[in-house]
Each structure stands twice: as structure tokens, then as C-alpha cells.
């Protein structure tokens, strides 16, 4: 019996629009409002015209007075433009308590659905439901996405811990999280009934690329708000008064090193010797120089190294929220000494830094720090390679993590090969949790007895998301895991090619009968597939849960102490 092959039309970028209710009338209305009315539409190619971007990558949202629009800490994949009304930004970290924000737990499978995996998994690899794809074309992503129930703030003065700022019609917000792939830095709620245009970040990226007026507008905002927000969150700046903070912010420089899409350069230079590669990394501050500013890492990563014989020894790596140069500035101020910088700081790929001049630190910050809280005085060090204390990573591990950029991982799969019996229980568990499709490979770079397996690390800076034309690869709003929306994935391979760690696979999909699903031209339809950290499973990552020999763990590379403890078990 011969049947027609399973076919669907090849998935396209805008098969599933962000908001199905957007129509020509709404688009025309948006195009009449500045700054959209000022955009030269001829700068956009026909395949991604300005009206098409507005039609498919944006959605109109109405919010009632005091309704929460974005919550601090959530991962956002979109930015907002205020059409009418005004919104209020709650300033400061944890400005509104989490319980007031109605933060829910990520949705997990219930017990029965979990149990059903025992007999309900597909018999063939990469089976997909054709019906689901067809239904998705009729709907819109946002309507079925991870939208939250409307949350309203009551008795605002009593729940707010810090100050607020008002944003009015014609302004953008939310672009920091959307563009830098980081959590929302503030909670924003409607000050009055308002209408907003939500822009999926892929659309925002096109607008920034083709419309200089939008780019300038967004970039100015990005610098201004990210700077103030970051200072407010930084350890030694918390006690500053609003006026002092403003003064410090005015004198702080915003600097960027390296390239935003660093992965392509990294892949190119991967085979270059480490001692050569380090010289190519943009220099932020150099060992032996006077510390003329406190460097705060705003986004990205930096390598802290020290001269060691003919090379440079990597002492540590810094990421968002960490600072460089404080010990030297504090030491010099406290002891009237003139100790130079003890380490060199270099950008690893791409890094945004804030530089607070030393004079500003001495004037506003240091006088407020109690003597007991000062860092220990700087003494000449003669540290040897692999000198380490409990809870510290050894030099070879740090060099390995930095050279291979594993520092980017928030859930890096690390295996102890001296305990791993190669039983593959982890792979089987992974397959069971993913419809019989394992989502990682027990293979990868090794350092001594440890291996970093080829499993998605759910990066701090997920560069795989940069080029995705549909936003199919995105962060889970609640947990921040990098996940793929199979329905909106068009199989373009951009994410798989961008991943510096080769942790995303392109798979040919099949129907329930095991037949390849083909497009109109009889080519197999592909989808991107990777570890989703078992975001829907009751147990969390099945691989960790299934390892009988404590050989496998998932590590947040920002928490080096926990990792060091695991290595030193």
C-alpha cells in the first residue's frame, strides 16, 4: 500500500505572527506615530519591509492602571513602545517584593503525564505532529506563549521599596533585556490606562539595523538606564543618596570592548594557540598601570590575568555584576600607597563595562565603607600555578574554562570520567524525557578527569539566539532556560551554526508512522533540537537524576565555589 508522503509547506519566518490581531489598519496607525513615521521605509528590503515587520513582529497591548507590564527578574524577549498613557518604573533591586508580583513556578508535567512517558513515547526518532504545525499557522505565538495572568499592584506606596521613574508616550522600554538576552532589570507597571506596542526582539533588531533614528533612540536609552540600574545594584553603591548616585552616574563612562556577535570570531580563532589568542583579546586595564578607574562588568565576560614567566596566567574570569580594580583603589586610599593594578583585564568576546573614575570612588564610595569591610592590603604576591585554597578553582581548570568559553554556561554538563562507568543511563533518561530522542552527546572537551559534555549550557549570553529570525529559540520567561519553540522553528540552522559549543543539532522530522516530513519540493523538513534542561519534568534534568555514580552534574559557571566543591569531592 503506497501512501502520499507526509508534506507541509517549508516553514517560513512569519508563518506564526507575534500577534494575529495586527492588521493593515493597526500597522497604518503605528506608521503615523513618531518615531515610526520618520523612518525611511525604502531602507528595508522587500522581503522584510517595514509594514511586514510591524505586522508580524509586533502586537498592540492594553494595560489598565497599576497593571504589571514586565517583572524584574523575568527573561524578556520583547521591548515595548508607549503609544498612549504612561508607565512607571520601580527603581532599585527587588523594589517590589516577589510575592506581590505573583511570580509563579514554571509549569511542570503532572504525575500522569510524566508516567505516560513510559509507554507514550514515539517509536521513531524526531516524531512531530503535523496537526500541531497546521493549527499553529492559524494562531499567533504570543497568544499561546508564556504570557502571564494580569497582575495588579495595590497600595503602591506601601509595597514600593525604592523610588520610581515615569516613562511617557513615545518612549521605549524593555529593550535592555530583549537586546542583551538578560533578565528584566526593573518592574514596570501602568501608571494609567495605556496602550503599548510590544515588539518581538527580532523585529527590534531589524528596526535598529535599518532605521538610524530608532537605533539612536534605543541606544541612548540603553546606555542611560543600564548605567543607572547597574550602579544601583552594585555592592558599594547601595548606600549612596539619589543625588550622589546621579553625580556618580554622570561621571561614569560606558565602554564596550569586542564584538556583540563574538561567536564567529571565536570559532575562527579556536585553533590558535592560547598564548597567541590572549594577545588578541581587547585590553581593558593592564597589570602594573595606575588604577584610574573602578571597572564594573555590565554584560559579557572578562579575563583577569597576571604575568607569569613568558606568558599570562588566568587568575579568574569576571561576568555581570563583578568589579575590577577596587582592591587597589581602596588600598591606595586607605594606606596612602600607590600600588598599581595587580592583574590585567581583557575582554572575552564582547563586554560592556562601566568605568567609575578613581577620584569619584574616593569622593563618594570609600568614605562610606566601614574600616572592617575594606579588602585586605595588597602585598607582593608570588603565586604559583595551581596554588589554590578550598573552594577555589585551580589554574588549569580556569584556563580550560576560559579558553573554551565554558564560563558562559549556567547549566553546563560536567562529567567525572573517573566515576562514569559509561553505562549511558543518562542518555537513556534524556531520551525517555524527550519522546525517545536524546538531547546531548556523552562526548566533549576534557580537562584531566573531567569532561564538558556536548549538552546545551543554557548560557548567560546565549549567542545562539542572536540570528534566530523567528524567536523560536528563546529564554523561558521564568527560569531563563534557553528553549526552542518547535512550532515556530523554521529549520534555518542559524542557531546551530552560531552555538560556539556545537550543542544544537538539526534533525529531520518524521510523522507518527516514521516517515520523513517533506516540504513542497520534497526536501526533508528540519528543526533545531537541543537540551531543554527538562524544563517540564517533575525531577529537573533527567540526566543528573539518572546517574547512578554521582558522575554527572550541571554547573553554573558563575558559582565557582560550588563547582570547586564538586571537583574537590
Amino acid at each position, binding site marked *: 500500500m503506497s501512501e502520499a508522503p507526509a508534506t507541509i509547506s517549508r516553514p517560513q519566518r512569519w508563518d506564526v505572527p507575534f500577534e494575529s490581531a495586527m492588521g493593515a489598519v493597526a500597522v497604518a496607525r503605528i506608521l503615523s506615530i513618531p518615531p515610526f513615521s520618520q523612518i525611511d521605509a525604502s531602507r528595508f528590503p522587500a522581503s522584510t519591509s517595514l509594514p511586514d515587520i510591524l505586522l508580524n513582529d509586533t502586537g498592540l497591548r492594553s494595560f489598565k492602571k497599576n497593571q504589571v507590564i514586565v517583572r524584574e527578574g523575568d527573561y524578556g524577549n520583547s521591548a515595548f513602545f508607549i503609544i498612549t498613557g504612561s508607565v512607571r518604573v520601580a527603581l532599585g533591586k527587588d523594589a517590589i517584593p516577589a510575592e506581590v508580583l505573583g511570580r509563579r513556578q514554571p509549569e511542570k508535567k503532572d504525575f500522569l503525564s510524566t*508516567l505516560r512517558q*513510559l509507554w507514550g513515547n514515539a517509536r521513531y526518532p524526531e516524531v512531530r505532529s503535523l496537526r500541531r504545525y497546521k493549527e499553529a499557522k492559524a494562531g499567533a505565538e504570543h497568544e499561546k506563549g508564556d504570557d502571564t495572568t494580569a497582575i495588579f499592584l495595590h497600595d503602591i506606596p506601601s509595597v514600593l521599596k525604592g523610588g520610581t521613574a515615569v516613562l511617557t508616550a513615545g518612549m521605549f522600554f524593555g529593550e535592555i533585556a530583549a537586546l542583551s538576552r538578560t533578565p528584566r532589570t526593573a518592574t514596570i507597571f501602568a501608571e494609567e490606562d495605556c496602550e503599548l506596542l510590544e515588539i518581538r526582539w527580532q523585529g527590534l533588531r531589524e528596526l535598529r539595523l535599518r532605521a538610524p533614528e530608532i537605533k539612536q533612540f534605543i541606544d541612548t536609552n540603553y546606555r542611560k538606564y543600564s548605567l543607572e540600574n547597574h550602579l544601583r545594584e552594585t555592592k558599594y553603591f547601595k548606600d549612596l543618596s539619589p543625588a550622589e548616585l546621579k553625580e556618580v552616574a554622570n561621571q561614569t563612562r560606558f565602554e564596550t570592548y569586542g564584538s556583540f556577535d563574538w561567536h564567529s570570531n571565536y570559532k575562527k580563532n579556536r585553533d590558535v594557540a592560547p598564548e597567541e589568542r590572549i594577545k588578541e583579546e581587547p585590553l581593558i586595564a593592564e597589570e602594573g598601570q595606575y588604577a584610574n578607574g573602578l571597572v564594573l562588568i555590565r554584560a559579557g565576560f572578562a579575563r583577569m590575568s597576571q604575568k607569569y614567566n613568558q606568558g599570562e596566567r588566568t587568575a579568574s574570569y569576571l561576568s555581570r555584576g563583578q568589579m575590577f580594580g577596587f582592591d587597589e583603589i581602596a588600598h591606595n586610599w586607605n594606606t596612602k600607597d600607590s600600588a598599581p593594578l595587580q592583574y590585567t583585564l581583557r575582554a572575552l568576546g564582547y563586554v560592556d563595562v562601566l568605568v567609575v573614575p578613581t577620584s569619584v570612588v574616593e569622593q563618594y564610595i570609600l568614605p562610606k565603607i566601614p574600616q572592617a569591610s575594606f579588602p585586605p592590603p595588597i602585598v607582593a604576591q608570588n603565586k604559583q600555578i595551581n596554588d589554590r585554597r578550598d573552594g577555589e578553582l585551580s589554574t588549569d581548570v580556569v584556563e580550560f574554562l576560559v579558553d573554551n568559553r565554558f564560563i558562559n554556561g549556567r547549566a553546563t554538563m560536567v562529567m567525572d570520567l573517573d*566515576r562514569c*562507568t*559509561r*553505562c549511558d*543511563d543518562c542518555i537513556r533518561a534524556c531520551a525517555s524525557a524527550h519522546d525517545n530522542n536524546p538531547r546531548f552527546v556523552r562526548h566533549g572537551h576534557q580537562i584531566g578527569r573531567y569532561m564538558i559534555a556536548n549538552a546545551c549550557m543554557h548560557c548567560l549570553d546565549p549567542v545562539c539566539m542572536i540570528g534566530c529570525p523567528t524567536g523560536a529559540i528563546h529564554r523561558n520567561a521564568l527560569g531563563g532556560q534557553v528553549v526552542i519553540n518547535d512550532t515556530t522553528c523554521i529549520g534555518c540552522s542559524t542557531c546551530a551554526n552560531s552555538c560556539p559549543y556545537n550543542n544544537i543539532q538539526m534533525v529531520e522530522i518524521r510523522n507518527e508512522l516514521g516517515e520523513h516530513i517533506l516540504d513542497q519540493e520534497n526536501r526533508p523538513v528540519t528543526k533545531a533540537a537541543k537540551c531543554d534542561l527538562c524544563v517540564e519534568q517533575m525531577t529537573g534534568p533527567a540526566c543528573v*537524576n539518572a546517574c547512578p555514580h*554521582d558522575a554527572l552534574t550541571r554547573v553554573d559557571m558563575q558559582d565557582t565555589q560550588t563547582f570547586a566543591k564538586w571537583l574537590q*569531592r
Partner: protein
Amino acid sequence: MASTLTFFSQRRLINLGLLLSAVAAFWALQESYANGIRSTGLLSGTALFGTCLVLALFNARKKLPFIPLLKASTWTQFHIYAGWFAVVVFFFHTGLRMPNGLFEIALYSVFLAVALSGVLGLILSRIYPSRLRLYGENLMYERIPSLRQQLQADVEKIIWKSVNETKSFTLARMYESKLKAYFSAKKNTFHHLIGSEKPVNDLTEELNQLQRYMVAAERVFLAEVIECVKAKDNLDMQATCQGVLKYWLFIHIPLTFSLLLMGLLHGLMALAFN
């Protein structure tokens, strides 16, 4: 002292303490039964069968990785120490007497086989992983046969090239007489099991001895062949040790189910006839 202990050594101490406590508690219970002139055999038999049943559940747990039933590593720890407890209870139950009767001998032997295969599995799972890592490149078990074929094809290419370029047949003759068999199948299993490198050292030594019969150009090819011999040795080592780590459970688990079945029969017979 505790702060200097690693997580694993602390865990070992705690688990050992728990095991000794369980054994002491069981011994006290057994004594109280004996003093009360109650059947200690029934007590130890029930405890032994129950423990074996719980131990066997570990296999079921492995099939349910997505159900929140504690981590598999926690089950492993429980399995190891409960296994030792079962051994102690077994000796309480048998009173260190040799079995008599065919069924008893079979039951006794199966228990010992399960216990010994368990201990062997534990030892292997602690020794082989580091040996696998240190010996050579880590390979996926399923890929080893195809890698072996590829390696043999590579060696044959080297030999052909050597013959064509040097017009000398020393390597080719060696390949025909010895290396062909070496590359075509898994070799030296026993030596790999016990961690001996004697066969590969002997073979490389034998190959090096051929140098005196070779022209300079052929020695370059010889060096390449020796590298392939070492790579093949690693393939065999990985296949042997990974195979043992994978397949020892195919002895341990069926024996466990036989033990449970025979234990049940034994219990029913004991209840029926005592």
C-alpha cells in the same frame, strides 16, 4: 577532622555507620527472638527476602528516571550498603553451615553468585573508569566496531603506500603474517581485563626489531603502523572494559530474579513444612 574529609569519604563513613547500626539492631532482634524461643530462621529469612526484594527495586527505579523517587546515585548508595546488610543477614540465616539438599545448594549458590557479582560490579565500577580515561582516547562503545574497520583500512593503505614507494616487502609480510589478524578482530581481552599492556608492548617491540631490515623510507611507514597498533590496542581496551561495565549487569540482574523466585519457593516450603 570532619572538615578535612571529602564529600565521598564523609558519605562512606556515615553509610558505614548506618550499616553497622542496622547489623547491630538486627543482631539484637535475633537474640531477643532466640531468648523468646521464637524462630530466628523465620525472622532472618523474612529480613533477607525483604532486603533482596528492595534491592531488586533499584532496577525498576532506573526505568523511571523522570519520576521523583530520589536520585539514582542515592539508590546506588542504598543498594551497596543494603547489599552488604543482606550478606550479613544471609550468614545469620544459614548459620555459616553448608547447605544440604539440591534446592538448598542451588539457592545458596545463587545467593553467593548474586552477592559476588554485585561486589565485582562495584569494584569494576570504581577501577575501570579511571583506567579507561588514562589508557587512551575515550570512545563511544557503539562506535568501536566501525572505528576498528576504519583503522584496518588505514593500516592497509599505509602498507600499500609503503610497498609502492619503497619497493620493500618487510612491512607487507609482517602485516600478512601477524598484523592482519590483530587488526581484524578484538584481541587480548584477558590482558585488558587485568590491565596488562604486555601484548601491545611485545608487538611494538617485534615491529621495532624489523627496522634493521628496512630502508629509511620504510621506517617512516613502520612508525605510522606502530601508531595504528597502539590505537587498535586502545580500541580493544575500551571495548573490553566498557563491555564488562555494561554487561556484568546481564549476569547480576537475571541471577537476582532467579534468587527472588527461589527464595519465595524456599520461604513457602519452609512455612508449609515447619
